[in-house]
């Protein structure tokens, strides 16, 4: 068992445990912090796969921007352990069992698949994850979707403002 395998198993177990803690935590703030831990573990996986650009973007966009947005909303609503709505125990059990069944079916499918026998994900080598390569691909083959995504951002911004605006009709009721 060499160093890369040790790092892989450490990051994987860390991510899975943190993801379970996201569900188990009673307080929403703790859930957000555990989710940030999952994102850090996934960024570690990206670095292991030599996808450095995505590792940094994952940290900046997900752990930096999106989770701060979540924290802001939780802070605004003043959510804590006492206001957290809970489902009844049988529904929780049913959800866990059905999810476990899905995982079991999918894993047995992966174990049986012959197409992926002996296929390896290359770790630490290859330069497709570097910014230069990805930038060249992004601005040649994918330049139209890239420009369209700016329109998507504009519409998302306008949508968020329109939805979040105080409705004067509701205020009067």
């Amino acid at each position, binding site marked *: 068992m060499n160093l890369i*395998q040790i790092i892989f198993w450490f990051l994987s177990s860390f991510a899975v445990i943190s*993801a379970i803690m996201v569900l188990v935590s009673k307080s929403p703030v703790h*859930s957000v912090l555990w989710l940030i831990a999952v994102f850090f573990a996934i960024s570690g996986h990206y670095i292991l*796969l030599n996808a450095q650009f995505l590792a940094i973007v994952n940290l900046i966009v997900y752990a930096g921007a999106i989770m701060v947005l979540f924290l802001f909303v*939780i802070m605004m609503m003043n959510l804590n352990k006492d206001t957290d709505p809970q489902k009844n125990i049988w529904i929780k059990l049913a959800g*866990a069992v059905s999810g476990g069944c899905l995982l079991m079916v999918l*894993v047995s499918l992966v174990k049986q698949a012959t197409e992926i026998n002996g296929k390896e994900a290359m770790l630490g080598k290859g330069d497709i994850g570097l910014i230069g390569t990805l930038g060249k691909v992004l601005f040649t083959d994918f330049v139209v979707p890239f420009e369209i*995504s700016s329109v998507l951002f504009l519409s998302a911004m306008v949508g968020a403002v329109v939805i979040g605006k105080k409705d004067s009709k509701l205020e009067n009721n």
Partner: protein
Amino acid sequence: MPISNYIIFCLTLFTIGIIGVLVRRNAIIVFMCIELMLNAVNLLLVAFSKMHNGVAYLSDKSSIVGAEAQVFVFFIMVVAAAEVSVGLAIIVMMYRNTHSVDINFLNRLKN
């Protein structure tokens, strides 16, 4: 690293996300579990991209086979960022109307 390890790891993360959507009633936690599922898919896309690149790497060291998958992951992140801003605005709106983030209040959308 065998690709099946990555597939099983990502399936585990994805299933935890699904269980979270089924089990929790807090709208923000449900939303966070959707983000978790998106991230599991992203990681699997990158692992497959490195799998295809690894085959091409043997004959050509500067091959860029598989770079499309990483651009695709980049676009998924772009769409996720836009989706989160709109989704959180909807949750804030819902909180303003019902004074709760319980998704069971959404079972009567009329009125």
